[in-house]
Each structure stands twice: as structure tokens, then as C-alpha cells.
């Protein structure tokens, strides 16, 4: 069969097809297009990109919401993004190195094997129908030989994945689902070949093929679900383009973060995340450490202070001398610790593996017992082997092989449309067991800027002064005040200046006015008047209150690195009574471990580096897309949108999915209860095997669809 040649070899040419062979020489650039959804968008984006002179070819992939552009070497990607922005399309640069390419060789390989098995199954089945309906003598022998000619090479090629997995398991002296499957396929083929050669009545070529076909379907579904999750996770990682601005003798140049060395001077603009550990050389300012510590308010730093990778610059550009880069930064070292600590997930045994652990020895035992029993009773080794093989085939491993992937495919697909990305294959099963939810506060329960309370009490003069002062600073609190007072006429002030770490000063009709840090909250001070506190109120994430309300019946906690008072305030707003603040990352981890030791199954929801260890230790973990890369990597589930609304649905669907998986196992067992006695008694014919296999597989698939 020439068709059976290696499908993976076709990968490289296919990559060229997309760009077109004549364009192969340029640089390849990937853009993320989060908002495209229709034919007009595809046309618009491609037209806009092709109109850019440096562009040689552009192709949009709607499924991945991504454009692949071939450009002249050394083209700045900003040109492309600007061109798309003018055409009305939002686009983001993707880091090509973080994407492993568009083509999915494993998926293609499975698809081709599936097609070969399907083709061979249909042809052999047609021939088998003739045998079942009574073909005899020469006709039956001819049909058996033709079936053998089709089935043997097809099985040899299509069932490779099972043989390889089974061999891998056997080599380390373990049993998995692929061992009984491989044994059934190989024994059925060999025995049928023997039966054909002696002109026997029963051949199981169709059974060997349909077994391969149904199981490959399960494998392919499983693979597709995982690769969709993997490519979306890759996309999130690729959105953070690792680039920094290095200053060498006063000249700025943009370099990849990987090329930075200790001792380099870099400048980070407001809003940028600091890529290295280092010392601040220049520019007093504020940094947001919420990702690392959970503090909701930025911290003032001055030259000479230590800066850690992962902090975000708030107001002024900062010049930093790098002391540690790449894998040596605190951020990466903590992320590496998490990888070592990932134990709770590895401790979990998937439902499918638990089923296989019971099923495989049972079936092998039965088949062996059937062989020995019949051999002793009749002395006919050929007939005894026939019965044993029929037992192996008829025990419906295909229904068991489909039980999990069919359900997880349906459920993850549904959750993905709601904006939840299931990264780990067993996450759904673990999510179904959750009885306790732990939330981080900053960046998880809260989102975006804080809101001001207490402005209603201000007189119009005071409000005007506050607004004018707030304009003098980039501090998030100042921005929140300016936002809250946007419809107030600003007062006329002179000599407005900001003192980092304190606040903004100004002169109003000769009097000193100040807006900034007070005793325990932000204050507005006007000379000769008592100071007015303006406490900040953090805003709950969209949908958080409703989601928490819908989680009724679960034990809910808030654990934060921020102060106890601030945490309690927000938890009250969210309606959660169990609150802990001032926690260091190790404290969160130990709290989670304590809960697990009490036998609780904890869902940890967090975004920062201070949550990473807790995310890894929890039974199952979720982080928003805005979280640090390290936190997303440690979580099982990523929330793609901003709203928390899908969270209760996810729990509901996961419970439903687990129920369906169990039902599927029950269905498979039920079929076996009927089929095994028939097979052991020696009444199983190839027709009975074919019927049992197809009906059980189809029932399982139909039952899985009910997750929707």
C-alpha cells in the first residue's frame, strides 16, 4: 500500500503551501486577531496587509484567529499592526518562537490512520456480510483471502499507536488499556489468517479493523481537544513578546529579552513589565508589585533600590541595571520551584486508567480461562483458541476506549465556547470533585482600577482642587480620582508638582493644597481645613458577585497577600466570610495543604506569582488570562474573558461530564455482562462480535453528546 507512507513527511511542504512557494524567502510574522469572525473580516485583513509594501503574502486562519504574514526581512511589525488598526481590526504581535507552527503532525498522522482503518473496515465488512449471509466453500474462502489481503496491511499500519503504547507499558511491567486492545487485534488477525488458510468458517478480520477504527476515533477526538487547548495556551504565551529596550552609551535599541546580559542598562516605559532583576539607576517612580506580592497599591522606589522581574512600571520610565537575567531571575526561579512542586495533579489517577487497571487483568484472565477450560473439555486447541479470541474481541474495549474522550471532547468544546480553556486532560474530572474554592484577591477577585468612595461629601471647591491635583500624577489612585470627578470643573492651581511616594502638591489662591498618602487612606488637605480622607474601594471583577452567589453550597475562602483590612472589605463585598490577609506565598501553599489534608478538594483561583505554588498544590486550579505566564502554566484551566460568569457553569458541566463518563463505563459493562457469557459458551460468531462492538460504541458516543 503506497498510501501508507509517512504522513508526517508532508508537513514541511504544507507550510510552504500557505505562503506560496515563490514567497518562501521572506520573514514569517504572526499576528493575533482577537476580533475577526466572518468572511468580510478575512477579506478586510488580508487586503489591508497586502496593501503594505513590505508584505509579500498574508493568510488569515479564522479558527486560530491568527494571520501569517510573509514580509521583507527586518520589517517592523508595528507597520502591520498600524495598517490593520486603520482598517478597523485589532491586532497583536505574537512571538513566533513561542508557537510551534500551524500544522499538527500528530493529528494528521492519526487522521490518515483513521482513514485507512475506515476504508479497510468498510470493504471487509461488505465482504463479511456475504459470508454471514451464507456464502460457502470456494466463495467464502475467496472472500476470506481478499479480506486478509486488505486487513493485514491496514491493521499493521493503522493500529501502530496502540502497539507502541502497549509495548511502552509492558516494557516497564505495567498494564494499560492498549495491552488488551493490541492483544485482541493481533490475535484476531493471526487466528483469522489461520482460519482462512484451512478453509474455516469464522474469520474476525472485520472485528480487528472496526476495533482499530473506533479506538482511533477516540484517540483522534482526544488529541484534537488537547491540541486546541495547547494552541490557545501557546497563543497566550506568545502574546507577551519578550523584548526590551537596551541603552548602550546613550543609544537605545530594541533587543530580545533572551539577549540581555547581567550588567546591561535597560529602560522600561510606564505600563511595561520589568524583564530582569536589577538595581534602579535613574527615575524615581512607582512599581506595581501586585503580581508578586498581592499588594493592591503601587510601591515607591528610588535609585539604588532593588527591582525584581515581573514588577510593572507605573508612572515614570525607569532605567535599570540588570543583575540577574533569564533563568536566574527570582520570577523564573520561583516558577521552576513550582514545576518541582507539581505533585497533587500527578497523584490523581484518571478515571480511564482506573477502569483499565480493573479491566485489563479481568479480560486476560477470562480469555485464558476460556482457552484452558475448552481445551480440557474438548481437547481441541483450535476451537479453544477460537473461543478465547472471541472473548477478547467481544469484551468491548472500544466502548471503554471511547468512554472518556467522547465526553471530554463534548464538554471541553462547550466550555471553550464559554471562554474556559481546559489545559490538563484530567482537569474536568478533578473539577467535578471540588468542594472548596479559594480565591486570591488582587487581580483575581478585583480587576482594573480602584473606585473612589467619599467623593459625594466634597464641596464643589474641594472637588475641583482634587481633580486638578489628580491630573498631576499617573498614580493609579490619582487616575481613579480624576475619573470619578470627570464632570467637575478643575480648580486653577499653580506650582503643581508630584513627590513620589507622597502625593501631589499645589497652590490654590495662595494656600498649599495636597492630595496623596495620609494616615490610613488617600487624603485631600487644604491649608487651614481639616484633612479629608478619600478611601479607595476596589472593584469586583465582572460577574464575580453572581458567580460567587451561584457557588452556593461550596466552602469559599479569600486568601491575599494584601492587608487584612483591605482583604476583608473586598471579601464582604463579594459575600465571602472566610478571609485571610497578609499571607506570603508559602503561607498560601500551607493553607491549601492543610485544607487538602482535611480531605477537601480545593479549587484555587489566582493570578499572581504569589499564588503559583498554591495553584500547583491545589486539587485543580484556574487563572485568568491576565495572569502571569508562570501562573497560567501552573493552572489547569485558563479563563479567557474578563468575566467570572462561566465559573459556576464549568463546575456544573464538569459534574455532568463525570456522570456521563461513569454512565459510559456502566454501558460498556452492561454489554459485557451479556456478551461475555455468550463468548465463553462458544456461541460468539464474527457477526455477534461486529454487532456488539458497533452498538456499544455508538451508544457510548450518543450518551456523551448529552453533556451539551
Amino acid at each position, binding site marked *: 500500500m503506497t498510501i501508507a507512507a509517512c504522513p508526517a513527511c508532508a508537513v514541511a511542504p504544507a507550510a510552504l503551501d500557505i505562503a506560496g512557494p515563490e514567497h518562501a524567502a521572506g520573514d514569517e510574522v504572526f499576528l493575533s486577531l482577537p476580533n475577526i469572525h466572518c468572511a468580510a473580516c478575512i477579506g478586510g485583513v488580508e487586503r489591508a496587509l*497586502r496593501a503594505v509594501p513590505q508584505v509579500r503574502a498574508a493568510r*488569515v486562519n*479564522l479558527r486560530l484567529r491568527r494571520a501569517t504574514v510573509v514580509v521583507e526581512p527586518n520589517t517592523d511589525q508595528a507597520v502591520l499592526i498600524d495598517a490593520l488598526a486603520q482598517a478597523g481590526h485589532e491586532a497583536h504581535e505574537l512571538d513566533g518562537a513561542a508557537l510551534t507552527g500551524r*500544522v499538527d503532525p500528530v493529528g494528521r498522522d492519526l487522521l490518515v490512520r483513521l*482513514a485507512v482503518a475506515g476504508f479497510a473496515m468498510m470493504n471487509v465488512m461488505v465482504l463479511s456480510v456475504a459470508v454471514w449471509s451464507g456464502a460457502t466453500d470456494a*466463495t467464502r474462502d*475467496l472472500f476470506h483471502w481478499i479480506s486478509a489481503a486488505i486487513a493485514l496491511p491496514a491493521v499493521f499500519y493503522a493500529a501502530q499507536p496502540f502497539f507502541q503504547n502497549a509495548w511502552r507499558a509492558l516494557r516497564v511491567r505495567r498494564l494499560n488499556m492498549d495491552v488488551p486492545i493490541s492483544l485482541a487485534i493481533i490475535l484476531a488477525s493471526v487466528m483469522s489468517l489461520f482460519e482462512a488458510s484451512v478453509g474455516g468458517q469464522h474469520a474476525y478480520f472485520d472485528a480487528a479493523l472496526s476495533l482499530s477504527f473506533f479506538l482511533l476515533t477516540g484517540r483522534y477526538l482526544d488529541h484534537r481537544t488537547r491540541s486546541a487547548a495547547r494552541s490557545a495556551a501557546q497563543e497566550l504565551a506568545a502574546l507577551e513578546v519578550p523584548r526590551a529596550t537596551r541603552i548602550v552609551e546613550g543609544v537605545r535599541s530594541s533587543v530580545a529579552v533572551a539577549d540581555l546580559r547581567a550588567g546591561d542598562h535597560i529602560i522600561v516605559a510606564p505600563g511595561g513589565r520589568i524583564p530582569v532583576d536589577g538595581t534602579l539607576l535613574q527615575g524615581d517612580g512607582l512599581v506595581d508589585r501586585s503580581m508578586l506580592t498581592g499588594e493592591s497599591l503601587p510601591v515607591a522606589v528610588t535609585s539604588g533600590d532593588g527591582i525584581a522581574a515581573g514588577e510593572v512600571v507605573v508612572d515614570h520610565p525607569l532605567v535599570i541595571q540588570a543583575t540577574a537575567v533569564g533563568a536566574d531571575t527570582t520570577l523564573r526561579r520561583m516558577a521552576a520551584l513550582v514545576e518541582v512542586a507539581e505533585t497533587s495533579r500527578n497523584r490523581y489517577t484518571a478515571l480511564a486508567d482506573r477502569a483499565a487497571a480493573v479491566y485489563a487483568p479481568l479480560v486476560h484472565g477470562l480469555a485464558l480461562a476460556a482457552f484452558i477450560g475448552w481445551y480440557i473439555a474438548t481437547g481441541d486447541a483450535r476451537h479453544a483458541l477460537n473461543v478465547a479470541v472471541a472473548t477478547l474481541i467481544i469484551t468491548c474495549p472500544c466502548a471503554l476506549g471511547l468512554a472518556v474522550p467522547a465526553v471530554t471532547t463534548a464538554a471541553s468544546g462547550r466550555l471553550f465556547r464559554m471562554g474556559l480553556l481546559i489545559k490538563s486532560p484530567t482537569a474536568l474530572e478533578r473539577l467535578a470533585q471540588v468542594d472548596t474554592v479559594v480565591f486570591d484577591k488582587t487581580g483575581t477577585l478585583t480587576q482594573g482600577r480602584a473606585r473612589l468612595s467619599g467623593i459625594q461629601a466634597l464641596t464643589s471647591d474641594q472637588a475641583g482642587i482634587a481633580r486638578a491635583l489628580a491630573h498631576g500624577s499617573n498614580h493609579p489612585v490619582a487616575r481613579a480620582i480624576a475619573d470619578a470627578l470627570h464632570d467637575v470643573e478643575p480648580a486653577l492651581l499653580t506650582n503643581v508638582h508630584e513627590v513620589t511616594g507622597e502625593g501631589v502638591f499645589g497652590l490654590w489662591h495662595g494656600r498649599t493644597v495636597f492630595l496623596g498618602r495620609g494616615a490610613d487612606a488617600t487624603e485631600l488637605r487644604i491649608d487651614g481645613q481639616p484633612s479629608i480622607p478619600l478611601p479607595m474601594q476596589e472593584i469586583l471583577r465582572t460577574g464575580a458577585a453572581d458567580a460567587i452567589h451561584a457557588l452556593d453550597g461550596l466552602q469559599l475562602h479569600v486568601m491575599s497577600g494584601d492587608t487584612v483590612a483591605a482583604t476583608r472589605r473586598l471579601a464582604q463585598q463579594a459575600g465571602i466570610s472566610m478571609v485571610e490577609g497578609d499571607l506570603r506565598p508559602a503561607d498560601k501553599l500551607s493553607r491549601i495543604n492543610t485544607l487538602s489534608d482535611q480531605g477537601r478538594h480545593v479549587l484555587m483561583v489566582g493570578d499572581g506569582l504569589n499564588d503559583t505554588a498554591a495553584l500547583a498544590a491545589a486539587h485543580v486550579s484556574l487563572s485568568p488570562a491576565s495572569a502571569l505566564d508562570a501562573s497560567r502554566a501552573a493552572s489547569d484551566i485558563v479563563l479567557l474573558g474578563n468575566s467570572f460568569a462561566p465559573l459556576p457553569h464549568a463546575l456544573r458541566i464538569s459534574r455532568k461530564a463525570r456522570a456521563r463518563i461513569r454512565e459510559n463505563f456502566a454501558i460498556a459493562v452492561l454489554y459485557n455482562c451479556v456478551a461475555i457469557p455468550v463468548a465463553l459458551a462458544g456461541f460468539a460468531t464474527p457477526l455477534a462480535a461486529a454487532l456488539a462492538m458497533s452498538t456499544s460504541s455508538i451508544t457510548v458516543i450518543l450518551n456523551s453528546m448529552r453533556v451539551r
Partner: protein
Amino acid sequence: MNVLVFLVPVSLFLGAGGLAAFVWTVRHAQYEDLEGDAARILLSEEED
């Protein structure tokens, strides 16, 4: 029953043809973006 001598090879040949066509489409990346390809038929000014 002699008709089988023709019909069996013919049916195998047709099936193999379908399989070969399917493998060809897989190798030419026709299943990478099903949504996008469905939408593309609505575009009038495809430049290729």
C-alpha cells in the same frame, strides 16, 4: 457469481481512490481552518 471477479476489484479500486483523495486533502492542509475556508467562498476578490 462470476460477476464478482469484476465487482470486487472495482469496489476496492473506488474505495482506494476515495482514500487516496482524502490523504491528499490532509497533506494539503485542507483541514487546518475549516471555519475560515467555509467563510472564504463568500469572498469575491480572491487574488490567487
